[in-house]
């Protein structure tokens, strides 16, 4: 009898285990919710006035920018920052879990092996969903005024979930490849920087040429543009299809890499 028969059941069991962990050890959850909220408040209140004024000359559909325009501009970027932060949390949780003897026990049991990782990834995506709901709530409180229809909200949720799944699988692999919990918390750091080096916080038009080229071609920019278009009505164009392509690619690489790392023999 193949262990695949139990793929769904074992994955559910592992998901329950991880959700219990999140409740009992809420440090990672606080971090995943806290980081994007802090950045939102920082960018709206500390930098928002100046950055908002800069939006006017950027060729966007905004005549003169101010703080309230900047809230609308930055909110999608903050949401993606939240997704990246949630993924980083996965790397830490997985690296921590790998130090536990119970992982060796799982390996000696006739279970669907990837379920250990599926539990982590799905648990982390649920955690990110909670975090993003909090971020949207805070954004609305500080003046975010999206004009999305119900359908566009659903589409936004789908794009963000898809991105979370992709980044979380990648991050799971990064957590497994790390030799220690410390390096697992550092390794996914570039993921947190990418929204800044894309269209998340300022339009890419305002960047120097080389950086602008990078910003226009990295995965976060089309994802952010898609979310921004869905929520505030800016042009989406080919961003949506690029976003889907990036997410499918990242998820596939992350899944294959992570499961391969997990199946490798460890001397411990």
């Amino acid at each position, binding site marked *: 009898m193949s262990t695949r028969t139990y793929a769904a059941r074992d994955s559910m069991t592992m998901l329950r285990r991880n959700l219990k962990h999140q409740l009992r*050890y809420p440090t990672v959850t606080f971090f995943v919710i806290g980081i994007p909220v802090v950045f939102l408040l920082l960018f709206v209140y500390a930098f928002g006035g100046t950055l908002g004024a800069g939006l006017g000359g950027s060729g966007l559909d905004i005549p003169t920018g101010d703080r309230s325009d900047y809230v609308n501009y930055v909110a999608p970027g903050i949401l993606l920052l939240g997704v990246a932060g949630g993924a980083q949390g996965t790397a830490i949780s997985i690296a921590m879990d790998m130090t536990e003897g119970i992982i*060796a026990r799982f390996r000696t049991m006739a279970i669907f092996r990837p379920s250990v990782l599926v539990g982590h990834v799905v648990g982390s995506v649920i955690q990110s969903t909670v975090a993003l709901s909090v971020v949207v709530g805070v954004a609305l409180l500080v003046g975010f005024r999206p004009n999305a229809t119900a359908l566009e909200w659903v589409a936004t949720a789908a794009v963000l979930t898809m991105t979370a799944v992709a980044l979380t699988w990648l991050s799971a692999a990064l957590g497994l490849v790390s030799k220690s919990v410390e390096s697992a918390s550092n390794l996914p750091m570039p993921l947190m920087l990418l929204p800044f080096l894309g269209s998340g916080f300022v339009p890419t038009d305002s960047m120097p040429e080389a950086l602008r080229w990078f910003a226009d071609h990295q995965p976060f920019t089309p994802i952010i543009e898609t979310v921004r278009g869905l929520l505030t009505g800016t042009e989406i164009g080919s961003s949506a299809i690029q976003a889907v392509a990036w997410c499918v690619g990242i998820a596939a690489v992350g899944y294959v890499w992570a499961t391969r790392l997990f199946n490798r023999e460890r001397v411990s």
Partner: protein
Amino acid sequence: MTTTTTSRTAIAATGLRKSYDDQLVLDGIDLHVTEGSVFALLGPNGAGKTTTVHILATLISADGGDLRVAGHDVAADPDAVRTAIGVTGQFSAVDNLLTGEENLLLMADLQHLDRAEGRRRAAELLDHFDLVDAASKPAVTYSGGMRRRLDLAMTLVGRPRVIFLDEPTTGLDPRSRRTMWRIIRDLVADGVTIFLTTQYLEEADELADRIALLDQGRIVAEGTSEELKRRVPGGHVTFRFTDPRSLESAAGLLDDALRDDSALTLQVSSDGSLRSLKSLLDRIDDASIEVDELSVHTPDLDDVFLALTGHATEYEKEPVR
């Protein structure tokens, strides 16, 4: 020993080899464990005990050799082996953030027991392992002995036929160690096969039907505790005398004896049998030599180990890998 035709093989290994990089860890090991027996793999740190368990328990693969556990080929069908075995490793394999009961229920789910059966099994094991009071406390708060009991209880949830116990009592206090021994004996009474590794000769002596001595990746001896002890001439009788004069005359009488002038003792080889003891005592008595104290030493596994490996069981410190 067991020659009944009904006895079947639980673990069979032929020519098991494993090396890491260019370091040879297991150098062609043969093992044969009969169903329902306790087999102890005894050896110092670094002998290859844990590697052997890891290979038989499907955690790592062997470089060579034919391995069958519970009737299944370890290399070809590891999942079939996994359904039949339970492993309690050297390091605690419990989920620290879950309670004792949740840990057991987690195992029940992963063993694909139905909900009611899982709850019943968990309750039964909590009771049997004296963990009822701690059932709803997180495992992180458990003492070493409790943690080891929970660990073993988790291993038993799926009623494995073959159980691997890698140094089950290392680091436990004497009382917890005795409890563990009792539990292991109970398991054997239920017909389970136990493959045990230990550095404690006493533990192997207490629990095991058969013992294999592993040293530097090779089995240097195998047999029952009695058989192994018989293989070494470690038995002797020690006389202590009240004064040097008595020692002197006794030494003249027993010319192959080992003499210690400062302790006033004389050590004479003996197989410990009543007849050889009597003849020895008669010779001393006939010469009217006064003996202060007499002690008989029968060979223990320490002697076996020393004799067969050329080094004692007080292990030299090894660099941590």
